[in-house]
C-alpha cells in the first residue's frame, strides 16, 4: 500500500521500496548520503520540480539542485538533526513561492545509512 506523506514511519517504508515503487509515489523523493550528496532522485520529484532528466546524482543538493533552500537556517537545521540519527522535520510553506496559493511541504527523515530522506509534497493552485 502506498504510504501517505504524513505516515510516521514514512522513511522506513520508502527504504523498503524499489526504484519503480518510489517513482510511483505522489510526492517527490530525494535521498542524500551522509556527505549531503544526492543518491536518489525520484521521477515524481523530477517532474514536479521541472527537471526532466536525472542529472543531479552526485551533486550537492543545496548548492546545485535547490539553491533557494540553501539558507543557513535550513542547512543548520538539517545538519544538527542528522547527528541525532532519528530526524523527522517537516516544513511547509503557503504563498511563499511564485505560486501565491500553492503549498509546498518538505519532510526530512533520517535514512538507515546515516544519510537523509527528503520528501517533497506540492499542492499546486
Amino acid at each position, binding site marked *: 500500500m502506498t504510504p501517505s506523506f504524513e505516515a510516521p514511519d514514512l522513511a522506513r517504508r520508502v527504504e523498503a521500496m524499489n526504484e519503480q515503487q518510489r517513482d510511483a509515489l505522489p510526492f517527490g523523493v530525494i535521498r542524500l548520503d551522509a556527505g549531503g550528496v544526492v543518491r536518489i532522485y525520484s521521477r515524481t520529484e523530477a517532474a514536479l520540480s521541472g527537471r526532466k532528466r536525472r542529472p543531479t546524482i552526485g551533486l550537492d543538493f543545496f548548492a546545485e539542485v535547490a539553491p533557494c533552500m540553501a539558507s543557513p537556517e*535550513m542547512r543548520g*537545521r538539517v545538519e544538527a538533526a542528522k547527528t541525532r540519527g532519528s530526524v523527522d*522535520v517537516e516544513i*511547509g*510553506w*503557503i504563498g*511563499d513561492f511564485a505560486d501565491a*496559493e500553492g503549498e509546498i511541504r518538505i519532510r526530512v527523515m533520517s535514512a538507515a545509512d546515516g544519510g537523509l530522506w527528503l520528501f517533497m509534497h506540492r499542492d499546486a493552485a
Partner: protein
Amino acid sequence: MESGLSPPKPWGTGARNEGLRIDIQRETAPGGADAPPPAAEVAYAAFEHASQWRMLALALTKASRDCVKLVDLDGRVVGMNSAAQRLLQIDDPGQLVGRFWETTWGEPERALVRDSVERGKAGQPTSFSGFCATAKGEPRWWEVEVAPVPDETGVVRCLLCVSRDVTALREREQEMQGALKRQRQALLTLSADFDANSRKLRDAEARVWHDDKMRMLGRFVGGVVHDFNNVFAAVHGAARLLRRRVTEPQALDVVNHLERAAERGAGLARQLLDFARSESESTEVFDPAALLSRDAHLLRHILSGEATLTVETAPDAWAVLGAPQRFQSVVFNLVANARDAVRANGRVEVKLENCPSSARPPGLEAGDYVAFSVADDGCGMTPETLRRAGEPFFTLKPAGKGTGLGLASVFELAAACGGRAFIESEVGVGTRVSVYLRRSAVEGEPVNSAGEASLHGGAKILLVDDDPLTRDHLADVFRALHYVVVEASAYEIAAAHAEVEGGFDLVVADFDLKDGRGEALVAELRAWSPSPPMIFLAGGSDAPPPQDETVLMKPVSETRLARATLEKLGRLPGAFASPAALRAVERIEARIQDEAMKRAMAAWRAHVEATQRIPTLDDDGPWREAPPPLGYVVAVVGAGDDPELRFERVGSELSARLGRPLVGATLAPGDEQVLGDVARALHRRLDGSPGYRYTRFALGDGKVSLVERLLLPLGDADGRVGRLFGLVAFNEATAP
C-alpha cells in the same frame, strides 16, 4: 563585387543599334508615323559608336535599383547587376551566374519562367509576378519583365530580365485587404445586430399598437378609479354604520351583502389601478419574498374571510430583476382569481421558494429561478378555458366581476423577468398558477461609493451580456457612474465593436453566454492588442470560469462591481484581495495550529470577505493594538516593485529572542541573513496575499516542537499594501 553587366559574348557590335531603337520607338511612340520623334530616340541618335551604346547599357543597368539579369537562349543566367546581388542576398555572383534561371524559382513559378524565356526567344517581351525566396531564405515577391535583346540583324541574342521587389507593397496590400475584410465583417455583424434590433423595435411597436386598446382603457380607468374608490369607501363606511344599528336578521343580511359588494368593488378598483399604473413602472432588483410578506395581510383582506389563505416564503429567497409593482399586482390578481374560484370553506395557498437551475421545469433556460405559485381548491377550469386563459380581456366571470386582465398580466410579468408562467387546472379539483422569475444576476445593494465617486467615469466600457434585462441594468449602473458604455448582446457583436471602435478601457462580460461561446470570447479578448482589462461575471453555468481573470460570481453586488471596475482601471491599486489570496487563506486555515494565529487569520479573512479589501492597521484585528509578544508590523516604504521594508513595531518576546532591537531596521529583498527567508516572504506579501510557514520538529527526544509564522498584508489609505503584520508561534507537545 561591384560588377556591372558581364556579358559572355558581345551582342551590340554594330555602329548603331537600329533594333533597340525601333523597339523603344514602338513602345514609347504609339502615336503613328506623323508624331514627333520621342526624346529617347533623339538621345540615342547622339550615340554613334557601339562602345558608347555598351556604356549606356552598363550605366543604365548599374543605376537600376531593380534586380537586372541577362539570360542566354538556353535559359542560363549569364550576368547580373549589383542590385541583383543585393536584392537576392547573394554573397558570390557564382551562386547564380551559370545556373538555369528557372531553377532559382520555386515549383509554382517555373512554368511562368520557362514560358517567358521561350517567348523572349521568339522576340516577344513578357511579364509575370511570382514568389521567390532570396539566397538567405527571406520571402520576396517579384514583378518580372523579360525583354528579348536582339543583335543588329534583329536576331534575339539573349534576354534582359528585370525583377522588381514588390514584397513590401504586397504585404501592405495583404494587410489592407485583411483589415478591410475584418472591417467589412465587423460592419456586417453590426448591421445584422442593427437589423435584429430594428426587428425587435418593430415587434415592440406592433405590440404597443396591439396593446393600445388596453392602455387606453388603463388611462381612462386610472383617471376615474380614485373617484370610484371614494364611492366604495363611503358605501363601506355606511354599511358598517348600519350594521351597528340593524338587528333584524333580514336587514343584516342586506348589510352584509352591501359590505361585501363594497369590498369587491374596492378590490376591482385596485386591480384596475395596478393595471393603469403599469406604464410608469421601473425595473429594479427587488426581493419578492419581502414584498409578499409585507402584502400578506392585504391579501387576507381580499379573501374577506371566505376562504383560508396561507402565505409561505422561503427565508433565503433570491432577488429578482423586474418591476416590483407589477409583481405585487400579479399576486393580488392571482389571489383575487383564487378567491372567486373557491367555495366558502376553500383554501388558497401562496408559496414562494428558490428553484435552482437543476430543479427548473422543462421549457426554461438554464439558470436559477424564484418560483411563486398561487393554488386553490376551487372549481378549476375546463381544458378549453385553460387554453384561452392568459388572453387579454378573456374572462368567464359574470359581467362586472372580472376584467380578464389578471392572467394576461401574469404571463407578461413572467416574460419581462426572463421566466415563464404555468397553469395547471382540473375541474372540481382546483387551479395552480406557477410563475418562474429569473434570479437576478445583480444584487440589489445600491452602489455605495461616497468616497470613491470621484474616481469613477471617463472610461469606455464594453459590456457583453446576452440577457437584455441584466445588460440594460448593468449599463444603467455604469452610466450612472459616468462611464461611456457600449453594449453587445453576443460574442460576434463584441468583436465587431472592438474592430470598428477599438480602444476600450475595460470589458465587462458575462461568461455564461447562452450560445456557450464565453470561452471563445475570453480567448478573443486576450488576443486583442493591447488586451483590455476584463471583468467576467460567472456562476450561471457549469463551465469553469476563466483562470487568472477577475471573475465576479453572480449575483454580483453593484458595489462590488463598481469597486472591481476601479481596480481594473488601475484607480485602486492593490486594494482588492485576489481570488488566489482567498484560496491561500483556506489552505493556511487548514494548517494553522496556534490559537492566537487562528484568530488573526480569521479577523483578516472576515474583513476581506466583508469589504473585498485587505484590512488597514486601524481595522479590527490583532495588528491594531500594541503587537503581541511574538508579533511585528513592517512598514512598506517607497513605491515601485522593490520598496524598503522597515520594522515599525516589534513584540517584546520577539526582540528578546533575537537579542537586539529590531524597530527601525530595514530589510532588503534577498536579505536572508537577518531573519532567514522572512525578507523574501515579506516581499511576496506586497501582492496582497497572506503567507504561512510551519516547521515541525520530531527529533526523537520525546517532544514535538512546532514553529509557525504568519504574514498578513495590510492596506493603507490609498488601498495599497502599506504594512505587513507578522506573527510567530512556538508550541511544544509530547511526542505520541
